[in-house]
């Protein structure tokens, strides 16, 4: 819906003329979507005023932080939250940080590392917002997803300000569940169609202890960064195992003994992507490393609080790995590679190499849940990739999947993706077909209910959650200003 001059003026009065635009020239930059306008609010009050205007004129809107993901219908108002970029508070004592939407994870993390703290950073990378929930490389110790959201300042779809958790009854951000309204299941929902409507304008994220350096000693010129030395009491290794079962057993034991700061179940293709600086080098490295590994594996980072603690953790790790016939990948024992991976995988800065560098696109099936079950499913999904690899539709990564333990293995994440050239329609169709089929198989064979699957099939198997969610959103959003679809991560 195009904005008429009067309505445009009303929005403009809120943010100033330099912070609203509906010129067609900018639209291809924004998801190639013809938005009614893109608006750049600068604070909570402006977001609230815009949302109220959207209700007044029955205009749909959707916010973005850095805007890497998201699917947006044309004709809506896009709230680009770029100007809301302040770290409001880092509370070392109560271990939380309060951020606005456009604080990127690398900013917050750099500040935290100086204070001996860290937080859960989405595997997408530190270039994304620090505010939205997600899961990533450090989940082993930093947990993942909504577990890390504490109090939130939320503009509801109708334009009211709701302060959840402890913020609802005080000016403290330390808890998401109270004293004050706990809206956790609504606010941090990421399961389509359960995308939280409205706009988070500030959120507190949980912080964790970090015994690594206050800053990594990165040297070299891009893209050849490395560490001048491995920080004391730190180590990174990649272990491969003769079978999925052995890998999984080792992963469980490592979780139980709480010895690894990070356990990231990279497949070897992802290791190759991370440590190389071009596509050609990556392909050559993958072929070389693929011969060295004995099967599936994972990458770990050990951080000792003291030299004694470090030594203890190393010894336990060695024992677990050897009991499960694991083998350390020689390439990662080289301090240069070890340093690169250690830094990249805590300062989450090379995911783009793993995903987009090859062909410009990837389609993925990510699942949070019980690792042993999802791994079993992923083996089948990997096998199903083989014909696509043979036909040259997708990049040959050996059909591999990946994943990791969350909260020392209490939960787990498994993911599998296909990298392809989006300009090749046959490849695109083949990948989408694969995705659909593997989601279907996951559901019909009772591995899990993929959030990407059809809601009317999955919903009834899950207590009709989708209908309940629909009722909730209708109540929250009587004017229907929140478009359906999309995802919170």
């Amino acid at each position: 819906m195009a904005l008429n001059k009067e309505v445009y003026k009303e929005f403009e009065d809120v943010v100033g003329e330099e912070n609203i635009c509906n010129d067609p020239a900018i639209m291809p930059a924004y998801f190639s979507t013809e938005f009614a306008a893109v608006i750049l609010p600068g604070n909570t009050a402006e977001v609230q005023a815009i949302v109220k205007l959207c209700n007044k004129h029955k205009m749909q809107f959707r916010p973005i932080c850095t805007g890497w993901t998201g699917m947006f219908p044309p004709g809506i108002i896009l709230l680009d939250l770029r100007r809301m970029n302040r770290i409001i508070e880092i509370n070392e004592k109560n271990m939380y940080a309060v951020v606005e939407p456009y604080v990127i994870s690398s900013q917050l993390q750099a500040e935290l590392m100086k204070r001996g703290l860290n937080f859960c950073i989405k595997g997408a990378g530190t270039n994304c917002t620090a505010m939205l929930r997600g899961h990533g490389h450090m989940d082993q110790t930093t947990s993942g997803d909504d577990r890390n959201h504490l109090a939130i300042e939320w503009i509801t779809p109708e334009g009211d300000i709701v302060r959840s958790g402890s913020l609802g009854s005080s000016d403290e951000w330390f808890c998401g569940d109270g004293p004050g309204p706990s809206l956790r299941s609504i606010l941090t929902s990421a399961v389509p169609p359960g995308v939280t409507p409205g706009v988070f304008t500030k959120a507190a994220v949980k912080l964790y202890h970090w015994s690594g350096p206050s800053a990594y000693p990165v040297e070299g010129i891009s893209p050849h960064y490395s560490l001048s030395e491995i920080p004391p009491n730190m180590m990174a290794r990649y272990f491969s195992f003769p079978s999925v079962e052995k890998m999984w057993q080792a992963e469980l034991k490592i979780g139980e003994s709480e010895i690894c700061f990070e356990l990231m179940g990279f497949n070897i293709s992802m290791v190759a992507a991370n440590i190389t600086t071009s596509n050609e080098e990556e392909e050559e490295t993958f072929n070389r490393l693929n011969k060295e590994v004995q099967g599936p594996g994972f990458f770990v980072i050990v951080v000792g609080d003291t030299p004694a603690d470090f030594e203890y953790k190393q010894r336990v790790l060695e024992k677990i790995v050897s009991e499960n016939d694991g083998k350390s990948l020689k390439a990662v024992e080289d301090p240069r590679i070890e340093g690169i991976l250690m830094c990249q995988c805590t300062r989450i800065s090379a995911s783009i190499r793993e995903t987009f560098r090859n062909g410009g696109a990837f389609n993925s099936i990510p699942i949070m849940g019980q690792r042993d079950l999802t791994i079993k499913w992923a083996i089948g999904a990997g096998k199903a990739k083989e014909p696509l690899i043979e036909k040259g539709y997708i990049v040959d990564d050996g059909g591999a999947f990946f994943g990791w333990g969350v909260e020392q293995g209490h939960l787990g994440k498994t993911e599998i993706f296909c990298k392809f050239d989006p300009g090749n329609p046959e490849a695109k169709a083949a990948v989408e077909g694969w995705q659909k089929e593997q989601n279907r198989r996951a559901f019909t064979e009772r591995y899990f209910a993929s959030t990407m699957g059809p809601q009317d099939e999955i919903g009834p198997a899950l207590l009709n959650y989708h209908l309940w969610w629909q009722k909730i959103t209708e109540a929250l959003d009587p004017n229907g200003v929140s478009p359906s679809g999309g995802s919170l991560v």
Partner: protein
Amino acid sequence: MALEDYRGDMEMCCRCSTCKFIPMQKVKGAQYVNVCPSIAKYNFHAYSAGGRLNIAAAMLKDGFKYTDKLLDIVYNCQLCGACGVSCNYAMDMEVLQPISEFRLRCVEDGKTNPALDKVIAGLQKQGTMVPGAKGKRGDWATGLKLKDATKEKVDVLYHVGCLTSYDKNMQKLAKATVKILQKAGVNFGIAGNAETCCGGRAYQMGYKEDFLNQAKKNMDMIKKAGIKTLVTGCADGYQAFKVLYDKYNLKGDLEVLHISEYIDKLIKDGKLKLNKKVNLNVTYHDPCRLGRLGEPWIHWEGKKVPGDRFVFDPPKEYRRGTKGVYEPPRDVLKSIPGVKLTEMTRIKEYAWCCGAGGGVNESNPGFARWTARERIEEAGSTGAEAIVTACPWCEKNFSETIKENGSNLKVYDIVELVEKAI
């Protein structure tokens, strides 16, 4: 290569926003994380490199629809190349080249910026990028009895550059350079009134034909005079002679050095001694076109290999900013007794631009100063008393911004400090 040749690169853009920031591993805190002045100032994604590529790709597909906003986006970019460095940490794709080609296309289509048109008219008339320049190009050298490199045999041609030649406040840089070269006993000359603009800034502004014109004039003169080595005092000039002339196969085997590289060599060869103390805490600003954009051109032609990857036959080597000139100016500063160098957060390949490039100095001086202000603040945060650069355009923009906004920070070109030390 034309814009069309970068279609594949533009379509590779995954909209990750990395081009807005310094490389993630280099982020040291909440501050000084931005690397692209354009998106930092204007905020709409369209002003970022990714946004620019998406727009250009859409225009190739659906036709060029010019609006005032589009031109505002196109001309409010310093073409500083920081976006490409950050993107190319992870991605194999061209970033700055298509942005630059898009600008050239606008000019070709007559969609120019009036302020830049004026500058180019001046170039066409007077052979300089300093509009309304008074006097002759070689006036600054009156009485210095320098060799005329177009007539006498010299080992080195010192190409002075437009701003240093014509701007009364910048001529001190030429004089300092002369003193340094004389002290080191270099057999050098200048072209005096026969010198003409390198054309580099015209190219940044989008005027390719004017650039090529200047390049041909310069290379004709250089070939005729039998010059083998050219030293420039200006980062724009350095990039023009070294990189752009090479890109258009005009450079031949001319050796091109920036004055900071040349001084570094003179010091290391024992020909220049810096023995006077200059007690000063400084920080160093990498000019874009000496640093990341000073990286040599790589000639390449190839075809995409059909299939799942964005790879080429023969393989393409990307210019990721790795081979820019970063150490020589730092080594020179470190050899000046009494000078203490403290680095800013954004340095070398991911340095923040001074703001004066890409025609912004002329088309939108307010934006140029805004960009400089950010750098001056960053320089101040290191505790330095002075910001040292290696390009007169940076120095001018910093000095004028300081004058406008007030700051105790002093601004020097590297040759001014070397002059003090000899």
